């Protein structure tokens, strides 16, 4: 039986330019997003068809999330946030197709996405607010003797953001896919064991089906959580509080 972590192996497809199966699925994800959205918005009808209303729902969903977290100012980041949401969601969903590679189950991919977000926050924060952006690390109403500790803790807390952002997405996708594979593997090994054990084989199959549904929920929720946190962090860049 195949090992449960074999599905995460990176295999070179074109070794000369380091094009791997991961790269292939990233390109595929972008192609699915761009192709799907272009196809959905082709007619631009006033009364939307099915595909167009899905595209509009996605837009409104992300726009609403961004507006809730970062206010109307935050809408200038809409292209970034929408791209991130669509990439993570589509990569997660493509990963749910059996036999497909899950791009977001590799920590380096999610960490790159998280660094993109935090980099945007830091650069935009400094460009827009200058040194006032550092006020983010100095909470108000703290006694003076406690301030050095609080500032260090706040800085570590800020540095932990890209880690938590990437860790959460990667760990959830990795764990989910391993669990699916393990339960699916039980079915095979129970059937192979023969005799009374074979009768038990449908039980892990049921579990695998239930896990599949859960994984679809997690795939969507993780994309949503990634987006919400991106919005919250961008809010810090827009309004560094006191």
């Amino acid at each position, binding site marked *: 039986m195949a090992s449960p972590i074999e599905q995460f192996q990176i295999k070179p497809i074109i070794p000369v330019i380091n094009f791997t199966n991961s790269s292939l699925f990233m390109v595929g994800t972008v192609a699915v997003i761009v192709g799907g959205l272009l196809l959905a918005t082709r007619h631009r009808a006033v009364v939307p068809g099915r595909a167009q209303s899905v595209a509009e729902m996605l837009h409104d969903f992300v726009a609403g999330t961004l507006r809730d977290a970062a206010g109307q100012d935050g809408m200038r980041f809409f292209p970034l946030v929408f791209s991130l949401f669509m990439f993570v969601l589509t990569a997660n969903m493509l990963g749910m197709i059996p036999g497909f590679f899950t791009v977001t189950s590799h920590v380096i991919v999610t960490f790159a996405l998280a660094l993109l977000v935090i980099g945007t926050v830091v650069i935009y924060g400094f460009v827009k607010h200058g040194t006032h952006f550092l006020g983010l690390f100095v909470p108000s109403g703290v006694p003076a003797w406690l301030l050095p*500790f609080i500032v260090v803790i706040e800085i570590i807390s800020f540095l932990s953001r890209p*880690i938590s952002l990437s860790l959460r997405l990667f760990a959830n996708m990795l764990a989910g896919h391993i669990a699916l594979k393990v339960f699916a593997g039980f079915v095979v090994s129970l059937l192979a064991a023969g005799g009374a054990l074979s009768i038990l084989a449908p039980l892990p199959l049921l579990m695998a089906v239930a896990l599949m549904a859960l994984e679809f929920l997690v795939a969507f929720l993780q994309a949503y959580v990634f987006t919400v946190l991106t919005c919250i962090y961008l809010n810090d860049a827009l309004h560094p509080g006191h």
Partner: protein
Amino acid sequence: MANPNERNGDNGRNSNGSDDADLTARMRSLDARLDQATAQRAKTEPRAARPKSDSTALGQALRLSAEFVSGVVAGGIVGWLVDYLLGSSPWGLIVCIILGFCAGMLNLMRAAGMVKPARHDEKR
């Protein structure tokens, strides 16, 4: 935008008969009601976000799991870097992991407190 033009056109034809006048009046009342409905919808829009709090709550729960760990990990990385740069091993690591523990706790409390609007306002 289109309404004033239409109304002017209607006013021009107003002398033709009471039918047009009736129509204008009805259109005007419809306009007023539309405005009212739009205003009301804009007012209730934030409240419409509440029903989806089911998925938001689950999202929050999934959020919390990584917050604490990442604080400790970040503290560990900072401590290791401090030791590497200043050669103060192992004190940088020890102090920074403890501080990272505090930062993780802070992350956790902030993430959990975020649901309360008062806390959110206070943070701003």
